[in-house]
């Protein structure tokens, strides 16, 4: 794997972890209500947020394994999850309105970087 590909794979792993956790956070009542008002409910969207969020974390794992192999990949994943979750916590606290755009932007970054790494 070239340095370029490795950088792209690492970027994919981090962006997918941030996007995944951002989506998962929106499926939690407290954070959804922070955006859409007290008592509001994501309804059927909740399942999709959870599904999409989990998929993001899975993509992050695959990128880590592609980057560091099947042993160190898991170690890298644990670290990426920690880093990604901290980003989401800080965003939900200090800029909650930016969490949905963050999720979309990071999903886009993960997609592009993932394609670039695979090429």
């Amino acid at each position, binding site marked *: 794997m070239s340095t370029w590909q490795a950088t792209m794979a690492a970027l994919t792993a981090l962006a997918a972890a941030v996007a995944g956790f951002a989506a998962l956070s929106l499926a939690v009542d407290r954070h959804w209500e922070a955006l859409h008002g007290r008592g509001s409910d994501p309804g059927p969207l909740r399942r999709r947020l959870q599904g999409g969020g989990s998929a993001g974390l899975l993509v992050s794992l695959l990128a880590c394994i592609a980057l560091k192999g099947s042993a160190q990949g898991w*170690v890298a994943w644990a*670290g990426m999850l*920690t880093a990604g*979750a901290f980003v989401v916590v800080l965003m*939900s606290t200090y800029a909650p309105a930016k969490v949905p755009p963050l999720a979309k932007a990071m999903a886009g970054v993960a997609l592009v970087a993932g394609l670039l790494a695979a090429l």
Partner: protein
Amino acid sequence: MKEGFRQSMAWLHTWSGLLVGWLLFLVFSAGTAAYFRDEITLWMKPELHAAAHASVPQTAALGHAQALLAQRAANANRWFITMPSEREPAVRASWMPAKKKDGAESKPRGRRRFESAELDPVTGAELSAPRATRGGDFFYRLHFDLHYMSPLWARWMVGIAAMFMLVAILSGIVTHKRIFKDFFTFRPAKGQRSWLDAHNVTAVLALPYHLMITFTGIVTLMFLYMPWGVQALYPSQDKFFTDLNNALPADAKPARQPAPLAPLAPMLAQASAAWEGAPVGRVTVNFPGDANATVLISRQSGRAIGYDQPTMLFNGVSGRPLSSSGAPGAATETRSVLYGLHIARFSNPLLRGLFFLSGLAGCAMVATGLLLWAVKERQKHAKALARGERHVGLRLVDGLNIGAIAGVPIAMAAFFWANRLLPATMPERPDAEIRWFFIAWGVAALIALARPSRRMWQLLLAVGGVLFALLPVLNAMTGGAHLGTAVAEGLWPVAGFDLVTLALGIALLFAARRLQRPAAVRKAPVTQVTAEAA
């Protein structure tokens, strides 16, 4: 019954955490810094910042080292050559000087002083001897040997603290009722609520790391804590470690017949080829110039998680391979992987950065846990305290909290300042640097215990922040590669040190500033605490 169980776990969590919290904070801080042990050492030897960074075939670098050792240490019993790596640009050649003529050893085995020289791998020129310093090794040792005390006692203390930590983590998981619901929750400026959130977030988000580092930390010293298996099978621990590390027996003897040492470079090439081209980390020559000379070559770390690296042994006179380490057994391999995970020498810069981040989260978890105890206790006795009554336990915990959480950054910064301000050639220099660490910490802790107040937090955090934030300036003014040149020349270990210390310093100053705000909160929220963790 269930509620009873949870309550008893909460009690266990509180007291197992509080009793060893201050020691754990030191261990976590020093251990986290130790991830960048080599980088810290390089920063603390500004004489080496100018070393060439062009890569050169390992065989060439080894040739230079052999030439120097043959000239300088022909009579030594052992040579050790550490090959250059991405993290340590110079070749280090060290040797153990020969015994005195009468055969008596001045110090017990393992305590004799090594002598060493560092070479430019490209030209083979000896680098101007850098100032003597313990560098990052000080933090590494500090995090399990402590200091000014017997390492054996220290390791038992740290081991017991680690065991308490493991208990605190597991009971904490049971106590935390809303792990998933509060996964992303941090509510700042809400007093006790905020501290609990910060404690939960730093604990839960890096939970795999916290469990791993605590458990594997105990595993690294398992032969000390549980020696009985080894004692049952081996006459001595030395013999056991010789077996475990695939090293030469400690009682190997020279033939006392001179024989020229074969060139080392072809042996290195052979070993590297056997490891699919992986670079060599270390070359040990036993009895150079003797008919019984042997050469032990081990692989550079960075390939696999495991701590034990494969080795090859060569006859030093003929240059022929004698043996190579076979595949380790399951138990050896398990220990090797757990050990390797703890010290993370396999990591590339990305992984090391993630370990460092998780380590900071660990410091923050311990710090917020300690603060939480004080915040809760203060609330319990709010009325009595308002009447002006004194609460000795609370006052003590407050003082220790300030002394540890705000004091450790000051001590670390003082260590770095001493490195640059003490005369480069002063005798016993490494000990003097370490003395600065403890004097700075001692002073901070004493005044904190004397007046544990909000002003004291502010003062000490600000002092630590200024000392940390100015380290890049100090580096530039005392002969190191300053940020501009370090970045331009791709000297990332030095540039990274400056950038990270600058960021930590700013974070500490930010924390001190936040404390000025006369809000309902008594102390600073999460970002600051992460910073204090430095």
